[in-house]
């Protein structure tokens, strides 16, 4: 098939950017989107030009590194997949495909399609630790967990931190990401020990990064490659509200320990 890629090119954060068009011929419909970008780059390198910078790593949809808006949709039009798992058969022959980086103040652009997502790392770091027992392998099912909670925690844990939720949200809100991370640990006995301090610290870290607020438009869950439900956002709001009522835990000097 024949397609034209319209890719955002920008040398660095301060340089002006713009779209470059790359007409591509002999594209197999079984190719992944990133493989087409590879072909664009091989051609650019052969011609002695600067290749398009884009983030990628595992290319099997589990690492959350690839990150691009394909025709206005985060990770492309295919539902429940990352850009690397989007195949060319999703697109019509002779189509013009616009490729842009994630756009958010909290995700500053580095080059072309690459943005800095360390804001997510700082939110995770603010979440702190989880108390678990070390030592020998524990017996299976030694800690009772209901099937419902285990399933919900697993759904939340599917988050790969790609940032598509922020990219798709009209407000650039990371609430789906934060709610997945908080929701995962708040449901499991292992994560409950630090439960309330964790949500307060993670929300505080989130607010510092310059993201927008959640207006419940559900764009995030529509583009999430792991199809994480926006209902987790409701659970995060509840968790944060309860944690605020309980107050931040203060370590007592007189406490036994």
């Amino acid at each position: 098939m024949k397609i034209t890629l319209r890719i955002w090119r920008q040398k660095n954060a301060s340089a002006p950017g713009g779209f470059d068009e790359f007409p591509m011929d002999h594209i197999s419909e079984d190719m992944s989107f990133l493989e087409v970008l590879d072909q664009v780059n091989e051609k650019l390198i052969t011609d002695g030009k600067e290749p398009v910078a884009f983030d990628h790593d595992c290319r099997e949809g589990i690492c959350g590194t690839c990150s691009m808006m394909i025709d206005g949709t985060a990770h492309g039009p295919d539902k429940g997949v990352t850009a690397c798992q989007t195949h060319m058969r999703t697109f019509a022959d002779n189509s013009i495909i616009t490729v842009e980086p994630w756009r958010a103040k909290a995700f500053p652009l580095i080059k072309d399609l690459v943005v800095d997502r360390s804001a997510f790392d700082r939110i995770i770091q603010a979440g702190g630790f989880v108390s678990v027992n070390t030592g020998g392998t524990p017996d299976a099912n030694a800690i009772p967990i209901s099937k419902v909670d285990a399933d919900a925690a697993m759904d939340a844990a599917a988050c790969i931190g790609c940032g598509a939720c922020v990219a798709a949200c009209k407000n650039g809100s990371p609430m789906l990401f934060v709610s997945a991370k908080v929701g995962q640990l708040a449901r499991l006995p292992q994560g409950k020990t630090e439960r309330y301090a964790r949500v307060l610290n993670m929300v505080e870290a989130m607010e510092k990064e310059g993201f927008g607020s959640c207006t419940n438009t559900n764009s995030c869950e529509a583009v999430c490659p792991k199809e994480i439900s926006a209902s987790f956002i409701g659970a995060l709001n509840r968790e944060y509200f309860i944690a605020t009522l309980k107050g931040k835990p203060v370590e007592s000097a007189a406490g036994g320990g």
Partner: protein
Amino acid sequence: MLLLNFFRSSIGLKIIMALTGLALFGFTVGHMVGNLQIFLPKEHINAYAAFLQSQKELLWGVRIGLLVMVVLHIWAAIKLTAMNAAARPVGYNDPGKSATKATLASRTMIVSGVIVLIFIIFHILHFTVGSVQPQFYGLHDEAGRHDVYRMVIEGFRNPFISGFYVISVVLLGFHLSHGLSSMFRSVGLTSPAWRKPQELFAAAFSGIIVVGMAIVPIAIVIRLINPTF
């Protein structure tokens, strides 16, 4: 300090939006039911209005309460909108397309909200202060009560006025169609099992509000209610 953080956080502001919105919605439902007395003989709505006016403490309590709710709702909306506008300094090639699956109502809350606010100001000037159509305002019925029945009917016989009211309540319904389901999630009173029922509640109640409110000016302008004065 923790409380301060809460009200500064986007989640805290959204909870304020939700709770004040809920209070305003509750008032709207009561207001709609009261309005429907226009379909009864004139004694009913005039007696109802006279009753409300006689309860001065309650009346002013509700008015001040509503004003506080409106101010908080707008204050939180301004703060959140500014925060959201700053969160994406460089936009997308096609910003309308990038907000995948977001409903039109959810993307235009600030626009529908501003229009509803303009309507509310007009509405208060029209029927509470009486400065829009003063010729129909100071009238009294046989019992010496403020003639609300005549004021409303003479007012809505003007197709421009009734048209403006109908458009405004449709936009109010549009605003509520997103707001009423969003509110549950903002305060955290939701779960996957409750999501669909809450969305249905929002759709149903925004529809009820639109029909219940718009039916009054429509019935008058098409002369379905057509008393002679």
